C-alpha cells in the first residue's frame, strides 16, 4: 500500500554461531516463493542476519523496496501483508517526531516498532507476517496477524534460525529435508488441519495467529499478543443498537480494505456474507469487478444467486465453471501450494478462481470470509444446538426430526429413524458437559481415517493425542464460556487459520499472486462480535440473525431468505470417472498403486486398494470415504513433491528473477546495489 506492492513472500536467516548468513541460501529461499512475487527479489544481510523478500511488481521502486532499512541503518524489515490503518498511524508517529521518506505502510511498520517495540502490533489493523532485524540489540522480531491471514513458518537448525512465508522456502535451505511430522499429521486426521505451532513437516513450526516471536542471544521466545475472548456480553446494548454498531464497524472495515493503489475486486459466492461485503464497497468502487466459482454439477452450483446479486449491484462479473476433470487436473498444484494433506477438494476451485482474477488484471479481492466463524453461521453451530436440545429430552422423536431438517441437502438423512439419528449425531446426555461437545462428531468421524494407516504409522500416531494438544492451547476462561461461544472459538482459532484462511485462502490466492481481504476479520468486528449474545447470532435455527438484521437491506431479499449452502466441491468423484470405472488422471493411478503406497510408507496398500475399488465403482457416497480418498491422495502427492524437492524449483527461479536488489543490512542508503546472479 502507498506505493508498496501487495503480493509478496518473506524469508530470513539468522546465524547463531557468529558466521555470516549465507546470501546464496537466502536467495534460494526467496526464489522458492517466486509465485508470491515473481518479478523482484530483495535480500539484505548484516553479518549474521539476512532478510529476503519476493514481490510481484514494483509500482514505486523507492517506496516499495524491501527489505527496508531505517535511515540510521538500525532496523530492517521484510513484510508481507497490509497495515490498513497505516495513514492514521503515520500521522500519529509523525506527531511523535518520526520522519518518513516514503508513503508506504512498510515504513510505518519500522517506525511503529521503533516507537512501541514489540507492542507495535497492537496498533496495527491488518493482515501481516513480518520480520524485523534490530541491529543494535541483535534481535529478530517476527509477528503474525491476529487471525492468521498471512502465513509464517520457522525452523531452528543446529547453528541457525530460518523463517519464511511458506514451508517450501525453508526446505530450499540445504540443511533441511522433508519428513512427515507425526504430531501434525495426527492433528490433520482429527481436526482436518494441523494446530499451529505444529505442521505436517518435522522440525518446522508455524507461528500461531496473534503471536510474536523473538530470537535474541540464541533463544527463541514465542508469545501471544492477542486472544479471542467471549467473556463479556453486549446484552445491555439492545438488539437494534447492537445491529447498528455491527454494521458501522463492518462498513468501516470494508472502507479501510479499499485502501490500495491497485483496483480492488470482490468474490461472490452467492451467499449472504460476500453479498454484504460486496454491497458495502459497491458505492465506493465505480467499476467493480466480481468473481465467482460455478459448478456444472447442480448439487454444488450457486450461480442462480450469484447472478441475482450481479443484477442487483450491477458489477462487471466473471465466473469460472468447475468440473470434476478440472479439479483432478489442478489438484497436484493445489497440494504444492497448500503444503499439507487435504481432506476436501474445495480448495481446487478457488485455485482456478484466483487464476481468473489474475487474468482479469486484478490483484486484490474482498471476500466474505470469516463471517460464519465470527457470527456463528456454520451448520455445525446449529447441529450442536439441536444435539443439546435433543439430549435434554432423548426420547422425543419430534426433536430428533430436526436433524433431517438441518441438512436438507443430505438425502441419506431424510429417511432415517429417530433412534438412528440420535446415534449418528451423538445425542448423549452424559456428554453435554464435554468441553468439545460441538466438535466430537466431526473429530470422531475423522479419526476413523487412521484405519488406513500402515502398522508403523498407526503405532507412531498412537503416541499423540490431538485433543490434548488442543486443550493445552485453550484460553484460561474457555470452560466458563457459553457452549455456542466455545464452538465458535474452536472454529475461529483452529479450523479458520489451519484450513479456511490457508488452504482455501492465502495459498490458493497467492498461487496466482492474488491477495484476499476480509472485512469480517477486522479485529474490531471480531472483538465486537464476540460480545454479541449467542441468541442474537442464531435465533432459533436462523443463523447470523444479527447480520441479517444489520445489513440484510443491502442485498436482495432472496439472498437473505435462501437456505444456507455450505461451499463444497465434488471430492472422490473428481478423481474417478465412474462410467468408465477409471481414474481421471494418470497420477491418481500411479500414486494409489500398491508400490507407491508401500514406498510412501504411511498407508496400508490393501486398505487403499479397497478404497480405490470403491471409488472406481462410484460407491463412495459418505463423508468419511470421501475424506479417506482425499487424505491418501493428498498425502501421497505431498510426499512425492516435497521429498523430491519439486516444490521449490529454486535454482531455475533465481535465474528467472528479473529485477533483484541487494541492500546491505545497516546500510544508510536505500538505493539498490544490483544483484548478480549466483
Amino acid at each position, binding site marked *: 500500500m502507498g506505493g508498496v506492492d501487495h503480493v509478496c513472500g518473506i524469508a530470513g536467516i539468522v546465524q547463531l554461531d557468529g558466521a555470516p548468513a549465507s546470501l546464496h541460501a537466502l536467495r534460494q529461499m526467496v526464489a522458492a516463493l517466486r509465485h508470491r512475487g515473481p518479478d523482484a527479489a530483495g535480500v539484505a544481510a548484516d553479518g549474521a542476519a539476512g532478510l529476503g523478500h519476493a514481490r510481484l511488481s514494483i509500482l514505486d521502486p523507492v517506496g516499495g523496496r524491501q527489505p527496508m532499512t531505517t535511515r540510521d541503518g538500525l532496523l530492517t524489515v521484510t513484510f508481507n501483508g497490509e497495515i490498513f490503518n497505516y495513514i492514521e498511524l503515520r500521522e500519529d508517529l509523525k506527531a511523535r517526531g518520526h520522519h518518513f521518506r516514503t508513503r508506504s505502510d512498510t515504513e510505518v511498520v519500522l517506525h511503529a516498532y521503533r516507537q512501541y517495540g514489540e507492542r507495535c502490533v497492537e496498533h496495527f489493523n491488518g493482515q501481516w507476517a513480518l520480520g524485523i532485524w534490530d541491529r543494535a540489540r541483535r534481535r529478530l522480531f517476527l509477528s503474525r496477524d491476529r487471525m492468521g491471514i498471512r502465513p509464517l513458518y520457522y525452523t531452528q537448525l543446529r547453528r541457525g534460525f530460518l523463517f519464511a512465508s511458506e514451508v517450501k522456502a525453508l526446505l530450499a535451505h540445504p540443511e533441511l529435508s522433508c519428513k512427515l511430522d507425526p504430531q501434525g499429521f495426527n492433528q490433520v486426521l482429527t481436526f482436518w488441519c494441523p494446530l499451529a505451532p505444529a505442521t505436517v513437516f518435522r522440525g518446522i513450526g508455524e507461528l500461531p495467529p496473534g503471536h510474536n516471536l523473538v530470537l535474541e542471544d540464541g533463544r527463541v521466545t514465542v508469545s501471544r499478543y492477542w486472544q479471542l475472548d467471549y467473556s463479556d456480553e453486549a446484552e445491555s446494548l439492545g438488539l437494534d443498537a447492537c445491529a447498528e454498531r455491527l454494521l458501522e464497524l463492518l462498513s468501516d472495515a470494508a472502507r479501510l480494505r479499499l485502501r490500495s493503489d491497485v483496483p480492488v475486486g470482490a468474490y461472490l459466492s452467492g451467499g449472504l456474507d460476500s453479498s454484504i461485503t460486496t454491497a458495502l464497497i459497491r458505492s465506493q468502487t465505480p467499476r467493480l469487478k466480481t468473481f465467482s466459482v460455478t459448478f456444472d454439477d447442480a448439487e454444488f452450483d450457486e450461480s442462480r444467486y450469484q447472478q441475482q446479486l450481479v443484477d442487483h449491484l450491477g458489477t462487471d462479473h466473471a465466473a469460472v465453471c468447475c468440473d470434476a476433470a478440472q479439479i483432478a487436473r489442478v489438484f497436484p498444484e493445489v497440494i504444492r501450494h497448500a503444503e499439507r494433506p487435504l481432506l476436501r477438494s474445495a480448495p481446487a476451485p478457488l485455485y482456478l478462481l484466483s487464476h481468473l482474477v489474475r487474468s482479469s488484471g486484478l490483484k486484490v479481492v474482498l471476500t466474505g470470509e470469516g463471517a460464519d466463524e465470527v457470527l456463528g453461521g456454520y451448520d455445525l453451530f446449529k447441529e450442536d444446538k439441536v444435539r443439546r436440545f435433543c439430549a435434554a429430552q432423548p426420547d422425543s422423536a419430534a426433536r430428533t426430526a430436526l436433524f433431517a431438517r438441518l441438512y436438507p441437502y443430505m438425502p441419506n438423512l431424510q429417511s432415517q429413524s429417530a433412534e*438412528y439419528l440420535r*446415534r*449418528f449425531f451423538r445425542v448423549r446426555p452424559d456428554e453435554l458437559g464435554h468441553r468439545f461437545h460441538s466438535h466430537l462428531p466431526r473429530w470422531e468421524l475423522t*479419526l*476413523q481415517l487412521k484405519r488406513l494407516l500402515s502398522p508403523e504409522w498407526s503405532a507412531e500416531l498412537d503416541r499423540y493425542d490431538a485433543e490434548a494438544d488442543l486443550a493445552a492451547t485453550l484460553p484460561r476462561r474457555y470452560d466458563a464460556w457459553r457452549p455456542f461461544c466455545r464452538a465458535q472459538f474452536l472454529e475461529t482459532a483452529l479450523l479458520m487459520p489451519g484450513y479456511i484462511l490457508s488452504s482455501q485462502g492465502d495459498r490458493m490466492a497467492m498461487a496466482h499472486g492474488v491477495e484476499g481481504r476480509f472485512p469480517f476479520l477486522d479485529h474490531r468486528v471480531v472483538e465486537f462480535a464476540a460480545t454479541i449474545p449467542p441468541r442474537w447470532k442464531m435465533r432459533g435455527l436462523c443463523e447470523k440473525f444479527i447480520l441479517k438484521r444489520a445489513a440484510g437491506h443491502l442485498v436482495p431479499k432472496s439472498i437473505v431468505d435462501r437456505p444456507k449452502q455450505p461451499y463444497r466441491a465434488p471430492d472422490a468423484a473428481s478423481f474417478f470417472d465412474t462410467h468408465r470405472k477409471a481414474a481421471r488422471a494418470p497420477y491418481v493411478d500411479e500414486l494409489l498403486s500398491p508400490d507407491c503406497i508401500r514406498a510412501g510408507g504411511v498407508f*496400508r496398500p490393501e486398505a487403499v486398494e*479397497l478404497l480405490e475399488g470403491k471409488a472406481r465403482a462410484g460407491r463412495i457416497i459418505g463423508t468419511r470415504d470421501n475424506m479417506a480418498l482425499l487424505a491418501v491422495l493428498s498425502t501421497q502427492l505431498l510426499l512425492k513433491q516435497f521429498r523430491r524437492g519439486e516444490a521449490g524449483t529454486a535454482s531455475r527461479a533465481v535465474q528467472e528473477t528479473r529485477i533483484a536488489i541487494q541492500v546491505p543490512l545497516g546500510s544508510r542508503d536505500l538505493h539498490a546495489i544490483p544483484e548478480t546472479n549466483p
Partner: protein
Amino acid sequence: MDDIAQQLRQFITENFLFGAEAAFADDDSLVGAGIIDSTGVLELIAHLEGEYDIALDDTELVPENLDSISNLVRFIDAKRAAVAVS
C-alpha cells in the same frame, strides 16, 4: 447363522474398515463403535437387499434390526422365515 455372521463381518471389515482388524463383538453397536455412519447404513441396506434377497421397509430401518452383527443375523433370519412362510 454363523455363516451369515461371518459374511457380514467380512463385508463390514472390507467396506467400512478397509480391512483394518477392528475388535468389535457381535453385540456391539456399529454406529457407537464408529464403524457405520448415516451413509454407511444405506450401504449396509443395499448390501442386505442385494446379497440376501430381502426387501427392507422404511419402518424396519432401525438400530434394533441393523446396528450390530447379532441384530442383523436375527433380522435376516426373521425376514427369510417370513418370505418362506408367505
